[in-house]
């Protein structure tokens, strides 16, 4: 998206400009299709695509942390759970309207993420992956803990009432929630894109690629890394709150370590350090398990694992990288851009 147009010679300048126009047209068409979608498919499908949008927000958040900043997290399910519980508790115990819970969920997760980012500063690579994985594994137990049962509802969890469409709109609650989620997705992605394309984005990538050089250039790497953890958790928390509202239910056992692993799979399949990759990854983690289930009822996860292996072998830079490469081949641009660029 932020394909540089300056200082690359005239030909690529032209190519860059027209590519920009094409991209704008493509994005507008996609957005129109996304708005039209809930009126064309069954309400179960609307729910499924709603989940895709929610996962896309999570994957963007995780990608900011893992893809752009190089801090591997296997614990984002925990932040997703915190967001979901904040929304559920505010709606159930405080009587808040559903839309008002999103900023609170986001901010709560930002604080938790920032705090977790502090010890994470000392860890790198595998060690960080394991520490965050431990967080994900411990989360269901913490949510079941009996001294906070009054708020969390213990093992039973909390049931939420599905919000109706406002302003007397003649659409079903499912369709309304989908459109509501879509609006949030647009806001979050524009915010994420703006964050990543400028100074901050460059600082994050610099820290990932060469921490010492980044420090030498005056990037405050400790501050950036912890803030990135916070921002990433914020995205995930907002998505968690949306997820709770859409599913109308939160319980400790929906936030197992498997969820966190799924998120990581999502960004690897979608494409590391790619904004559009969030959508491909979200489609993968929402639909491929169902698809695997249709192929083999006996061992669906084995099929899922085989799919995973196939994707990693065939598209080492994720679906987004593959699409970018195919697009360039089609337009006859010989140069292969840096795979880390958006």
């Amino acid at each position, binding site marked *: 998206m932020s394909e540089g147009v300056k200082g690359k010679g005239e030909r690529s300048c032209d190519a860059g400009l027209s590519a920009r126009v094409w991209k704008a047209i493509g994005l507008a068409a996609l957005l129109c299709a996304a708005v039209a979608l809930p009126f064309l498919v069954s309400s179960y499908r609307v729910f499924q695509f709603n989940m895709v949008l929610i996962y896309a927000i999570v994957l963007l958040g995780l990608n900011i942390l893992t893809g752009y900043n190089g801090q591997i997290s296997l614990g984002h399910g925990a932040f997703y759970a915190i967001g979901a519980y904040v929304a559920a508790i505010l709606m159930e115990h405080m009587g808040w309207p559903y839309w008002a819970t999103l900023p609170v969920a986001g901010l709560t997760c930002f604080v938790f993420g920032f705090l977790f980012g502090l010890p994470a500063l000392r860890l790198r690579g595998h060690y960080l992956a394991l520490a965050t994985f431990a967080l994900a594994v411990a989360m269901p137990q913490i949510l079941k803990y009996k001294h906070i049962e009054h708020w969390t509802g213990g093992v039973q969890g909390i049931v939420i009432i599905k919000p109706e469409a406002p302003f007397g709109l003649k659409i079903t609650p499912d369709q309304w929630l989908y459109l509501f989620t879509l609006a949030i997705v647009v806001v979050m992605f524009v915010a994420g894109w703006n964050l990543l394309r400028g100074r901050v984005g460059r600082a994050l990538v610099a820290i990932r690629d060469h921490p010492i050089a980044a420090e030498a250039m005056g990037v405050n790497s400790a501050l950036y890394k912890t803030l990135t953890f916070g921002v990433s958790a914020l995205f995930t928390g907002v998505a968690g709150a949306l997820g709770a509202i859409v599913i109308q239910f939160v319980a400790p056992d929906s936030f197992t370590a498997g969820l966190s692993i799924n998120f990581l799979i999502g960004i690897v399949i979608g494409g590391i350090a790619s904004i559009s990759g969030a959508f491909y990854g979200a489609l993968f983690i929402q639909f491929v398990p169902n698809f695997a289930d249709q192929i083999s009822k*006996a061992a669906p996860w084995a099929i899922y694992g085989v799919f995973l292996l196939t994707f990693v072998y065939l598209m080492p830079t994720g679906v987004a990288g593959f699409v970018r490469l195919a697009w360039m081949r089609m337009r006859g641009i010989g140069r292969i851009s840096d795979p880390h660029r958006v």
Partner: protein
Amino acid sequence: MEAFLHQVLSGLATGGIYASLALALVMIYRSTSHINFAQGEMAMFSTYLAWSLINAGVPYWWAFLLTVAISFVAGIVIERVIIRPVEHAPVLSIITVFIALLVIFNSVAGWIFTYTIKTFPSPFPEQPLFGNRFISSHELGAIGITLAVLVMLYLFFRFTPLGLAMRAAAQNPVSSRLVGVRVGWMLALGWGLAAAVGSVAGMLVAPIVYLEPNMMSGVLLYAFAAALVGGIDNPFGAVLGGFVVGILENLVGAYVIGTELKLTVALVLIIGVLLVKPTGLFGKVFVTRV
């Protein structure tokens, strides 16, 4: 006091199991710098193999040895066929491959052997040894076997040419290749050894937690904690870490916060140790040149 002693000893026993799985993790980490997330599921699959052999009428110790041998070969095959093609891929792709292996093993085990819980025999007598009241024979045996495996690995790495070659390949692949060590095969051997050690862990833990496809998920987390506490590149540290984690888990569970938050203990332990010593208690500190 007696209850306390009992907690410590039974913690020591479960610690032995964490230690042997942690040892398997260290094996792979030392030779390839990867942490194998599928280690627990591989051990679980090996245990099912042993169960099938025993059910087919093979005596326990023969089944034990046969399982270790088959796991060793299977580990080599997995490295050659699945890990090799992504050897130079980014860390995240490799983690994804491990996760894929994990779900495949788990699912295939459930498919072949069903999800019903099975009992797994223990080779040790039911009566406690030496008439003691604190520790069962199986627990004592598990500790003994873990220590025996550790000693054998030490002897292998310290005193055999092959062990030396494996250490060299892990430390400096380029120079090792120049002096004729076949580095690729050394990595494969590392995987084989890890799978073999993991299968021992699986067979030791199965009589305690019962045999089912998800039996390793809890154990693996503690093994991670153990390996990290001890230092992921140090076999002795990993074993010691295993015992420490086992004892702490039991004591904290019994006296401080109750069993429901046991996993959280592992979390706090991991983060606590890493905060103070990011490379574990006995890990080597690597200094990188700018």
